[in-house]
């Protein structure tokens, strides 16, 4: 029934980001209208939360949690985004919202755990921002672009791969120090 949508999931699982951008463009305005009407959030917050829902959607596909859809992409996304909104409001302590939420396949608890992971990622983002620029670049090249140490040395004008390795070690130590200052959950 959802053949077309499962084809999209296939593409995303192969690392394509284009379909995610298209999905975002298609449903963004509808989500803004819906969320700002039903919850006490503004347009910018709604956009931000919908972006986070798209990111979760990508992650669920790439980690294999979502392989086949049993609803439309829109329904799935709106459910994630709705949770994001509710958690955001709770976090902001603006209101206590009790709602009868039924997440697809009843994954409510799992989703709350995901939200806790989100806190952790926020801490990591804060800690990384405290690092010197060269450390941020190095870690990005290593963990996101998956460059080897020789390529990193070339890219960042280091003497050789050993220098890059030593530099990475220093950057990780700095990151862990920063994280231990910030994080309440990740006790390193």
């Amino acid at each position, binding site marked *: 029934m959802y053949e077309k949508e499962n084809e999209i999931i296939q593409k995303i699982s192969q690392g394509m980001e284009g379909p995610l951008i298209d999905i*975002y463009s298609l449903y963004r305005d509808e989500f803004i209208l819906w969320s700002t009407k039903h919850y006490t959030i503004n347009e910018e917050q709604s956009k931000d939360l919908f972006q986070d829902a798209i990111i979760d959607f990508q992650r669920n596909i790439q980690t294999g949690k979502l392989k086949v859809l049993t609803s439309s992409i829109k329904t799935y996304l709106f459910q994630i985004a709705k949770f994001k909104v509710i958690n955001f409001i709770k976090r902001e302590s603006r209101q206590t919202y009790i709602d009868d939420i039924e997440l697809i396949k009843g994954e409510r608890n799992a989703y709350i755990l995901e939200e806790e992971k989100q806190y952790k990622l926020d801490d990591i983002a804060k800690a990384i921002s405290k690092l010197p620029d060269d450390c941020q670049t190095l870690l990005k090249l290593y963990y*996101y672009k998956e460059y080897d140490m020789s390529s990193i040395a070339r890219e960042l004008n280091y003497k050789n791969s050993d220098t890059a390795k030593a530099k*990475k070690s220093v950057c*990780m130590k700095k990151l*862990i120090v920063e994280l231990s200052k910030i994080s309440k959950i990740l006790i390193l």
Partner: protein
Amino acid sequence: MMPQESIELFERFAQGLLSDKEVLEFEAKLSFDSEFKSHYDQYLALENDLKLHFQKNSLKKKLINTDAIIDHKISHSLLRKKIYITISIAAGIALFIGIYQSSSNSADNISELWPYEEGLPVRMGEKVLYQTATNAFKLGEWSRAISLFEKIDSDTSYYFRAISHYELNEFTEASNLFLHVSKESIYHQDAELRLAIIYALEGKDIFAKNILIKISENKQHKHYKLALRILKNI
């Protein structure tokens, strides 16, 4: 706090800088030193989270750029709308003067009197099939909307299928379905008017007039004024 020497050791292990003997020692320590093992697990988790963080950041930036493109298009189209509205008002005034001066009986194009049907709001938690069908309708995916609504047996389904057929210029199918919308349905009055419009478009003026006269005589009918207007044009 994770000891600095442990971090150093994890890094060297990951980079393959440990000798065979050091690797053995490292693996042995993992098996008997629970604190060391716990730190190593945290270190691996951190590496994984770093990957997630950078991946998330990259997509987030692209989505923010998409926002800028969409919002630019919206503001551009709003500007164009303002220009169109200004031109339309000017054109409207000119047209009104023209009509007034010539006292012409120019007819409205009947098909332009077809009321816009927005569709029902799609609510989270409603039946998936119904929701998907309504979605397809709202997106103007007429054929898909028809095939989805076909699986639902209700007046609402007949009504929206009929409109979808109309949009595809399939007047016969559309009129048959409008005839199926029962008097109890909230869409009955809409269906009546639309059926009359289709008959008029098909040149079945007698049928169209019969319905329109009936509607125009009933001031409680939500479309009685529109019916009068269409009658003038047939």
